[in-house]
């Protein structure tokens, strides 16, 4: 008898947890702006309370807004797709639409197969030569693939962000992609966590590419599990990422005055 009630209790507890979890999910869905294409961006992934002062200044002054994207291979689509189809190019298009009065320039610096530790020391020099207002630094994937020591990774990202700040530019961090098919081979969690830590400590906006793609995959917007050949899916995902990134930059440059509680 005691056993039955015990079992009942634990089952009802579990049910409670599940109900709570799904209730939160419902909240999130109803809060997000309706409509839009399949790949909508939930508010909580946008609202950075961290500002991009240099970007805000440039927009206020009427431009130009120079953006430099530093990233590894996942900041580009290969397999014959034009560079404009990748998310940096898509972001540029979206930004130009949103800020029609302002000149927006983009340069992309792909450093394939380089870890954060290998990229960070060169950031200052890149800033010197390209003179950007904003540097978008995508990193973490190569580190996760090579299973670099997470502490070393954190120190490298930290050093890179500090170097960017000292060079007098705004910075945005972009974390790895959500890649369900390689989940049993690559474990990104330590790198995601450490990027979040650096973003918090250095008060730099973090564009959570991983969470976004995971959400789109769960919503059924994209089948990221599929072993598709061809670049169509990649183009669509990059299009969505680019638009989301443009929203993210504008939201971070004009942070909401105060979070209503």
């Amino acid at each position, binding site marked *: 008898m*005691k*056993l039955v009630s015990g*079992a009942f209790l634990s089952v009802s507890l*579990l049910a409670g*947890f599940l109900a709570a*979890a799904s209730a*939160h999910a419902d*909240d*999130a869905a109803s*809060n997000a702006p309706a409509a839009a294409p399949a790949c909508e961006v939930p*508010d*909580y*992934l946008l609202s950075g*309370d961290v500002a991009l002062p240099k970007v805000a200044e440039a927009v206020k002054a009427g431009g130009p807004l120079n953006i430099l994207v530093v990233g*590894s*291979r*996942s900041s580009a*689509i*290969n*397999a014959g*797709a034009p560079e404009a189809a990748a998310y940096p190019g898509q972001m540029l298009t979206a930004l130009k639409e949103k800020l029609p009065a302002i000149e927006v320039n983009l340069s992309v610096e792909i450093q394939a*197969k380089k870890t954060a530790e290998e990229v960070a020391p060169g950031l200052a020099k890149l800033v010197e030569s390209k003179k950007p207002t904003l540097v978008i630094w995508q990193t973490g*994937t*190569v580190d996760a*693939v*090579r*299973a*670099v*020591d*997470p502490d070393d990774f*954190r120190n490298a990202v930290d050093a890179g962000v500090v170097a960017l700040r000292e060079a007098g530019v705004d910075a945005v961090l972009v974390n790895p*992609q959500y*890649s*369900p*098919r*390689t*989940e*049993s*081979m*690559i*474990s990104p969690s*330590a790198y995601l*966590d*450490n990027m*979040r*830590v650096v973003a*918090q*400590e250095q008060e730099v906006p973090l564009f959570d590419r991983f969470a976004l793609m*995971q959400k789109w995959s769960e919503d059924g917007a994209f*089948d990221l*599990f*599929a*072993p*598709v*050949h061809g*670049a169509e899916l*990649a183009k669509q*995902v*990059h299009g969505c990422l680019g638009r989301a990134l443009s929203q993210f930059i504008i939201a971070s440059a004009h942070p909401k005055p105060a*979070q209503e509680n």
Partner: protein
Amino acid sequence: MTSVADQISAPLSAGAGVVPLAKAPAIARPTERELRLDLFRGLALWLIFIDHLPQNLLTWLTIRNYGFSDATEIFIFISGYTASFVYGRAMREAGFVVATARILRRVWQIYVAHVFLFTIFLAEISYVATSFENPLYTEEMGIMDFLKEPDVTIVQALLLRFRPVNMDVLPLYIVLMLWLPFILWLMRRSADLTLGLSVLLYAATWQFDLHFSAYPNGSWFFNPFAWQLLFVFGAWCAQGGAQRMSRIIASPITLWICGAYLLFAFLVTLTWYVPQLGHLMPKRLEQWMYPISKTDLDVLRFAHFLALAALTVRFLPRDWPGLKSPWLRPLILCGQHSLEIFCLGVFLAFAGHFILAELSGGTGLHFVISISGILIMSGAAWMFSWYKHSADKSGRAKAAAGNADLAGGGA
């Protein structure tokens, strides 16, 4: 846990001087199993399996979503407890050399199991490498690079320096078991001193950044210098520590502290999964707390495990009738064959991944895979114990010698 300690403390006090006397009752009356250990080790094995599959509905049932620690802590602690119980007795009865030999035999089994899993991993990754050509993930496919130099990779794997994802627990277990003869030897002199040294080593790990290096770079995901604390703590509990702590565990103050800490951990974890709540977290707290290192067994994680364990021992008495119920039988059986079931779980997680990827299955299939995995694990555990029983029956004489391994459910 008090009662376990009672049962263990008797041979402990007698065993020091009068070996033959202590030996006789141990064989005549087979010690009753501590089913709670089996139960929670079984639970840990199920949770590890679920955590190794991609995120799905069942993942929400695993404890890592409700606090800092997860199934690994449970697994390592119980392993320390049972290993110390079983081989500690072997050391008292048969001496240091024989016990060490038995431990080494166990280490060899674990090593073979690890190599077996690595082979399966190689098969999976090679298959995926040739069939997966999504341009979105060109970069992630860099993981296949090691296939280009199998000469180095495979040797490094045999040396336990190259350990693919989800294959980190067994190497940790091997290293801990290799230290076990020394731990037990020291514990026979002074259990408290051993625990003290273990805490010192843990502190030194954080201070001096001790670690095992890995291939191609970085270090072991589970740092043995840090995780030994849980293992030794488990061993210490088995050697009478649990009994001495019983008054602390029973005190209402402990209850409140544990409850409050678990609630705090739950609320913090909630902000990870419901990012809308993120702005409620004080910045100061975040900066002090993060990152919560799993590699070095963060103090927050260890404390979370302690709190969970204290509450479990308090509210789940040793003689809880539910432990005998058929509903918990599958869990207990899995816990009694931990090494086999652990390996099977890792294999099933690989297989599950593979099926999900090939059929691009949705939530429904995902759920089916998780449940079938658990059923397969339970079925296998039932078969192992059936086999062991019938083998025991046919070879009574042999069983007496091998009994030490059975008593703790195979440490």
